[in-house]
């Protein structure tokens, strides 16, 4: 059967959000601008980045996603994520261990309601005629500098975003346990571009992805979409096998 992850998540659980509840309502985020850049990564980290519950993609991949939300109930914010391409059993997913957001209230919303392992940092997404540029900085360092270069219009229906599985913690029978929180937002596209992917800076350790070395650019897209954050439907025990740990919310 397919390869499975070997990662022990224990060392990074302390910073994962402790969710007060899995019963959340939808959240409308109209007019969001989304930069997604996909790279293949060195296969030496193919298994060590993922827990036992997840299979790596073949080839192994990493998704850089920077989203700017111009209006929301907590005001505008920019969220940056670096996700590892994976499969939860046979479902295409992306695994998130660390994200950064520039709005403290949005950090709280995302951590508490959707289990995003997100912390506050400077994050921006700029659109120019020749490129879209995402930048995350903290402590004077560029944690991520990623771009789409030479955008060309495509149809929004040509773009496919894969659901997240976010590393979080929940209360279960009086104990705190790790769970992967499946988040599959709904997207209604207003426009979409495709272009050349360019990764200028990526500090893997700052994203809890030691050994993750992007080595082959695949694609880059930039969309404007009305995003609806969903109610939660599934969570996964990261320490069980891929077919064994899925739970309905």
């Amino acid at each position, binding site marked *: *059967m*397919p*390869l499975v992850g070997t990662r022990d998540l224990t060392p990074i659980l302390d910073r994962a959000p402790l969710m007060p509840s899995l019963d959340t309502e939808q959240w409308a985020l109209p007019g969001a601008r989304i930069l997604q850049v*996909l790279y*293949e990564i060195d296969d030496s980290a193919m298994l060590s980045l993922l827990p036992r519950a997840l*299979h790596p*993609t*073949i*080839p192994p*991949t990493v998704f850089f996603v920077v989203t700017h939300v111009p209006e929301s109930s907590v005001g505008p914010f920019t969220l940056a994520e670096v996700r590892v*391409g994976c*499969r939860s*059993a*046979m*479902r*295409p997913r992306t695994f998130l261990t660390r994200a950064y957001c520039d709005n403290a209230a949005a950090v709280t919303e995302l951590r508490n309601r959707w289990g995003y392992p997100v912390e506050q940092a400077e994050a921006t997404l700029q659109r120019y005629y020749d490129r879209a540029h995402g930048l995350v900085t903290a402590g004077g360092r560029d944690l991520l500098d990623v771009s789409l270069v030479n955008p060309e219009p*495509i*149809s929004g*229906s*040509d*773009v*496919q975003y*894969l659901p997240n599985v976010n590393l979080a913690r929940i209360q279960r029978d009086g104990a705190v346990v790790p769970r992967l929180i499946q988040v599959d937002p709904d997207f209604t596209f207003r426009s*979409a571009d*495709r272009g050349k992917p360019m990764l200028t800076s990526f500090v893997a350790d700052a994203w809890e992805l030691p050994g993750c070395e992007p080595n*082959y650019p*695949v*694609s880059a*897209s930039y969309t404007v979409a009305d995003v609806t954050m969903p109610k939660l439907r599934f969570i996964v025990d990261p320490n069980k096998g891929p077919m064994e740990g899925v739970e309905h919310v």
Partner: protein
Amino acid sequence: MKFGIFYEISVPRPWEANTEYQVYQNCLEQVRLADELGFDQVWAVEHHFLEEYSHCSAPEIFLTACAMQTKNIRIGRGITVCVPQFNNPIKAAEVAATMDIVSGGRLEFGTGRSATWTELGGFGADPDETKKTWDEWVRIIPKMWTQERFGYEGRAFSMPTRAILPKPYQKPHPPMWVAVTSPGTELDAADRGMGSLGLTFGGFAEQDQKIAEYRRRIRYCDPVGSFVNEQVNTVNFLYCHEDNEVGIKTGMRVTGTFNYLAEQLLAARQAYPSRSYPNLGLLPALRREASSPAADGGAPEGTAIGNPDRIVEVVKKWESVGVDRINFLLNANETVPQQEVLASLRLFAKEVMPKFADKRQPVAAPAAGGA
């Protein structure tokens, strides 16, 4: 109705020294038996880098071995990837013609363009280009086979005039097919006078509509080859057992394993936004339909698993919607022991095939001709 077998050649981990050898030997043994039992055709895919799912990167070699070990069964390249980073149209024409000669005129020539980033990226192919290069190749390859000398000035391929040799044994050339995975490709097949090598599955109602439209459109086609190959070929799973419950349970294990392996790969659409790839990868509809229980919670309605009576009913339904051929996947990742696979083939040949024998026709007239 004609019956065939279809190979992805999946190889389970752990990959020990003789694992691939043993899987290939099992496949060849199945092909020899299928030939003896009267199956019409054996097809093999061209896939690259698809760990466990398919270790069949040189189908021309495998199919030549099949031809050398059999007498009657036709050999189907399902498919030749018509993308320049994978293959070259001259070489594709030459290899196909040679296969046709050494098999004594038994080649079926399938064409396609790959559906995964795993493969397209591995070869450095541009996903936006594959449909265009496929279209160009299917127009020129039959000319390479039939013209004494051939020269061409095209968009993605050009060559000065040369004699492309050898020529196929079948005259004017082997039947040509298109792998149909994306919606609408069956219409591309019809418009070009090519057979629909249906790697999708769909429900009966959906197929009924698609086949009717294929039949309507092909009447007005501009054939790329020297003749129209109006045939609808589909892929299915086969596990036939005297005990219906055992047959369904084992068959579902095969379909589930196949589906599971296919999803580990990176579909072109998931990696690269392009209107060139509207589907979700490898045999998506086949996998969806074959994994979904029927309304009564039993086996999927169109999947040929169970006892002979159930499989006869399934095949009759496919026949009723206009399918000409069904090719069966017999195993996935060696989930079913070889002796059980062979027993399933024998039981199918004994109990199911005779029910359709009176309607079986010889292969397409041009294909049967030979030199």
